[in-house]
């Protein structure tokens, strides 16, 4: 069945079984490997993409539901990796294994789009659906605060408490 949607700003049509999850269409039909398979049951958030700007677990979303929608994956979040969240993630050196981080970044960027200055509590609430098995959570929090700063003043330099990368951290 042919299903048409906008993918990372481009009109896309795929021929796939309508119940096939969007995750597998992205990964194996369209060869966009950035969106990750972790659990297949929307428990871990590794497969998070934006559907009309809202974070969605693509592992449980039948591709038929993408019809006519605007889908953004990690590959389409920015042209060149310069989205404030992507910049902050590198500056704070968030990743360990890195496998969950695409999903984390998609959830974080959706959070910031709705809430430009989230508190730690806002972050915990918005990000609790994304598991980081390496538990880089201290840095995920710091990087979201840092991304909020970058988004508001792109030239601002890192402020000390957000780096999370010092020899000790209070």
């Amino acid at each position, binding site marked *: 069945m042919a299903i048409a949607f906008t993918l990372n700003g481009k009109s896309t049509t795929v021929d796939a079984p309508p119940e096939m999850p969007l995750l597998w269409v992205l990964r194996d039909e369209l060869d966009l490997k950035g969106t990750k398979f972790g659990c297949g049951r929307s428990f871990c958030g590794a497969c998070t993409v934006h559907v009309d700007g809202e974070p969605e677990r693509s592992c449980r979303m039948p591709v038929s539901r993408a019809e006519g929608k605007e889908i953004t994956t990690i590959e389409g979040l920015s042209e060149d*990796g310069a989205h404030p969240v992507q910049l902050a993630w*590198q500056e704070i050196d968030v990743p360990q294994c890195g496998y969950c981080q695409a999903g984390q970044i998609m959830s974080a960027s959706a959070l910031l789009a709705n809430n430009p200055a989230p508190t730690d509590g806002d972050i915990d609430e918005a990000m609790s659906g994304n598991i980081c098995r390496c538990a880089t959570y201290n840095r995920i929090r710091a990087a979201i605060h840092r991304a909020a700063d970058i988004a508001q003043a792109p030239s601002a330099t890192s402020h000390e408490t957000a780096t999370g990368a010092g*020899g000790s*951290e209070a």
Partner: protein
Amino acid sequence: MNAVDKTGNLSRRGFLHVTALAGGGMLLGARFPLDGARGAFAATADAATALNAFIRLTPDGIATIMAQNPEIGQGVKTMLPMLIAEELDIPWSQVRVEQADFDSTKYRGQMAGGSMATPMHYESMRRVGAAARAMLVEAAAKEWKTRPEKCTTEAGAVHFKNKSLSYGELASAAADIEPPNPRTVPLKDAKDFRIIGQEIPGVDNPQIVTGKPLFGIDVTVPGMKYAVFEKCRVHGGRVKSANLDAVKASPGVVDAFVVDSTAQAGSAAPSPSMFQVGLPNGIAIVGDSWWLVNEARSKLEVTWDEGSTASQSTESFDRQAEELSKQAPEQDLRNDGDAAGALASAAKTLEAAYQYPFLAHAPLEPQNTTAHFHDGGLEMWAPIQTPQFARGDLAKALGIPEDQITIHLTRMGGGFGRRLYWDYMLEAALIARQAGVPVKLVWNREDDTRFDYFRPGGYHYLQGGLDEAGNLTAWRDHFVSFGEGRRFAPSAEMMPNEFPQGFVPNFALQASKMPLGIPTGALRAPTSNAISFVVQSFIDELAVEAGKDPLQFRLDLLDSAPAGTRTAFDPGRMKAVLELVRDKSEWGKADLPEGTGQGVAFHFSHRGYFAEVVQATVSKEGELGVDRIWVAGDVGRQLVNPSNALNQVQGAALDGLGQALDQEITFDGGRTNESNFHNFKLLRIDQAPPVEVHWVMSDNQPTGLGEPALPPVPPALCNAIFAVTGKRIRSLPISKHDLIWA
């Protein structure tokens, strides 16, 4: 590939000789043409020059450094090249890092495990860089007709008086220089370090944040099919029959067949190493789409021969352990003094039974491997921590020579010890061979949770004795574990010199074992991740019984080793981290609200010294929140990459927290009950407190950080819960306990 020496003779033997002399990853004495031909040394403008198997210099001055070890998130792909770049004396901005394939002729110790990369390679990788630097200096000295000692290096160039030549300009000439003896090549003084000790972000970060294909699960090969593998839910069970034709008729399925490796020639050889995997048995479904072949599993109807493990369950283990605890132990692991006599004459005694559950590794990237048989050999792309052991075992199981197996090391979506075992590689190879096409095998999360090499559970029946002054005089642990005869199941053993051995005059460690058909293996900080909970909790109980502050009781205990006693670790280093964490956490001084308390624990593992304080709040209704974790660690005189060091320690501490709070694997009828993240619960961000990390920079060799920060967290948390509620947690996970207090 052959090394070519200066006289033009093939010197494979010489090369191997040099490698053996150097130990731990050296290749100096050989230069490897990039294309396998001598012509690669030609000084053409665009020729890349390989100074050794680790470093390639191009005329633009860029050094491409090979990262030899598998990356599982421990940061080794950044850390090992930092060591080389430091001594090469080139700015990090001129360094590019490439992941090396597995190649036992070029590299030593290509393995991720045991927090070994730093202690094993801290010096050897620096010598690789220093030797290359010496060759560049000698090339420049020749050009200037001076002596190498008169030249200096800085910022990727060699300098002499007012002259300088960049490394790029010298690369081709340096390739003709005889490599120096790696054992005697001088290394920098630590005060001159420009890269070691700097916060260098992970080299793959730009690819990770933009979603580039880096992981095993992202690999594609032309003509590749996808595969799933259905195994008997009872561990060790085997296929008797299945409705393969019905499955083959499912959409997207091109083939379905039974894989029974034990029936194949050459497949019965035992694994060659400390890590062992079983021989695969199950049903492969191969097709055009992973999702479709995974869906087709629901059509399978299989008759299984479940085998003897079907009688094993968590409940039966609990019952047997209880029975064994009442009998004389089967085995003495250690006896110092007279524990029984000392317990009988102690002023106070305590008894307690502790237990901890089986655990899964649950790396977020499910197990996978892409296998392609072609040109008489097998090419694989695999997330694997132990490529050398895997290849040896695959060669035996498949009946093909080791040198016909190529393993490309992919970045791994976590390891935690799971990928020390290559069962999924063996499955992928057998499936690809039988299917006759390149195959990417991907497990689903249920496979990954059910078919792990689990951290084994265990049971400890403890007795402790105190004298009138509250000093610990006797310690007895009857450890009921898994195994048969004298042999423990993998990672179900306990070190005879485990603390407090050496600090208690009368110490007895005894063991009994139950047979186990379920595979077990190493989970991050193996044995320590469980033993620390038992030892550091019971020490807390004894401190309370002695009427002493739990942290001071530990300091006193560390002081109690008789003079001249050789213990597994240096008590002075442990005291230093304990005192540091006491000060940083304001232990005993902080004005904590009602319902909030602190607990402390320490543990020595993987050559690292860690003392940690957990502050927790428990509401009177029993709701637990963890407020903060303080970590004090000592891994020697130098952190190679302080940014990654902090990340590793914070992650390890929170990993320990997740285990303690809510993780267990249970069995029924030989089957794993848990299947996905709803019933095997990983820590989430709203449960993750700030982790504050402090270092003691002791004058000792730098050691590894992937593991040793984990073990103190579960006991420190349980001790904090006791401080608030008066309830002693003697079994994990904590979620099974009622914490209501008033």
